[in-house]
């Protein structure tokens, strides 16, 4: 291995600073959430305690955050499942040109770049004019899909662009029907990417703010609840909440990454029996 150029060390330092920039603030509120009961929103720490975490479990201190958490969790799961199913179907559709595929592609891009507040406003107005009540599980759910689906589809496009079609041909040559080819050949091959799509679906929904602002109705999702707290809560309890929900996100992300990794290991172990026959 040849020697590293000096630029390597400079760039490593830059990268280190970038990571510090990304994670530093989050770590800071992580530390400050253990502030003593007398402590404030900034350093110094006045003792260390679990006081503010305890406050999270008392309704009067923080409002209905557990209800908001349950709603965000349910909504995240709904969005995740829908995003995976719709993205896979869309990805399969786009493997061949069909009338209108060009327009649909640009709609997907439009859905990605349109300012979130427009979706919020537009969906809110439609429900309003039709005399329907906005609710996180209906209007909120649909609005979030306009943000998660483009990501899911872009991943599916990338996956299918790299997909080796000879696997399907082999399946067909051995007499598999179109449906069997998809369920027994295509889906298992793209499974790790589907987990990625699921990760985007869940986390983007769980953290979405702007698109749910006018479409979630009288019951807040967690990001809306947290934002509401920023205007009237001036104690470290908001840091405790931030730390809890970030930890929850990290747990979810970790679970997804470990699953992808385990699938990869399993595939490396069992995937191919080439050269083992005869």
């Amino acid at each position, binding site marked *: 291995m040849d020697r590293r150029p000096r630029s390597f060390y400079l760039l490593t330092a830059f990268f280190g600073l970038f990571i510090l920039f990304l994670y530093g603030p989050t770590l800071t509120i992580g530390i400050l959430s253990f502030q003593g009961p007398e402590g404030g929103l*900034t*350093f110094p720490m006045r003792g260390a305690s679990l006081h503010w975490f305890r406050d999270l479990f008392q309704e009067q201190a923080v409002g209905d955050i557990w209800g908001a958490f349950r709603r965000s969790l349910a909504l995240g799961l709904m969005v995740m499942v829908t995003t995976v199913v719709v993205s896979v179907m869309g990805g399969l559709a*786009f493997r061949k040109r069909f009338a209108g595929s060009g327009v649909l592609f640009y709609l997907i891009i439009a859905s990605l770049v349109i300012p979130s507040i427009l979706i919020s406003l537009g969906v809110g107005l439609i429900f309003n004019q039709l005399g329907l009540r906005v609710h996180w599980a209906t209007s909120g759910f649909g609005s979030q899909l306009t943000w998660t689906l483009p990501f899911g589809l872009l991943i599916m496009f990338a996956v299918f662009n790299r997909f080796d079609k000879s696997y399907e041909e082999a399946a067909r040559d051995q007499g598999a029907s179109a449906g069997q080819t998809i369920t027994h050949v295509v889906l298992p091959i793209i499974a790790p990417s589907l987990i990625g799509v699921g990760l985007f679906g869940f986390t983007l929904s769980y953290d979405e703010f702007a698109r749910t602002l006018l479409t979630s109705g009288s019951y807040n999702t967690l990001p809306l609840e947290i934002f509401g707290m920023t205007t009237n809560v001036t104690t470290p309890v908001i840091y405790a909440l931030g730390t809890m929900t970030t930890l929850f996100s990290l747990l979810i992300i970790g679970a997804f990454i470990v699953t992808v990794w385990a699938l990869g290991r399993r595939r490396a172990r069992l995937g191919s029996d080439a050269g083992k026959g005869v």
Partner: protein
Amino acid sequence: MLKNRHFLGWLQAAPLSLVLLVFLILPIITIVIVSFWQATEFSIIPAFSMENYQFLFGSPVTYKVFLATFKYAAITWALTLAIGFTVAYYLAFHIRSQTVQIALFLLCTIPFWTSNIIRMISWIPFLGRNGIANSTLIDMGLIDEPLEWLLYSDFSVILAFVHLYTLFMVVPIFNTMMRIDRSLIEAAYDNGASGFQTLVHVIVPLTKPGIMIGTIFVLTLVMGDFITVRFMSGSQSANVGRLISNDIALLQYPSAAATAVVLLCTVLIVIGILLRFVDIRKEL
């Protein structure tokens, strides 16, 4: 057979089309229609009136706010591009082990999957009047009084934008860099190019599609934002998104809709120009 092919495509694309129809196309149409309506303090009235647009284009505030929006977008773009390109370049060309590369890449992307609101809140203890930045600077003797412009200022707004959106540059640029044929870089070295010359004449031109996609992401996210500006400026600065959300808060939906239409047109024009430089379908 031809019909059959189209039919299968339509069937598979049907759920997607339905979602986009109901939650993307119809809302935009509704906004366009409502932008011609009129409003009282309590309700909105169907009409065909140019009043909202006349008011919008007649008000100096509009131009100021649009200018501020472009300013945020331009500065954030330049910073995210510089940082994003450097990080992607480091990951793509200086990390030799693929495992380390994946690990570091994930390290960069994980914050993207956590809450933006909390990531904004987390700047308070750092930038506040008695925050870490100020007390460090005072301890070092660089300043005597806490700096007031660190938090709730344009500075903190742009800092938050860069914090939240640099990732949208890193990922597409990294993706494009990883697809550059390494023999091209060797060829440049063999022909006597220095590292810097290779970077400028080989890597940057080949990375342009990634840069364009990152640019589209960052510009649209910043131009459409309202919450970062509101929170990080302590409601002292405005951009177009805030103009819309303020109207919404006052239940002035027609006026909000008119502003939204103008914002949408602006964003689409910007994207239209950028898409001339890159074929997204080819880059996936």
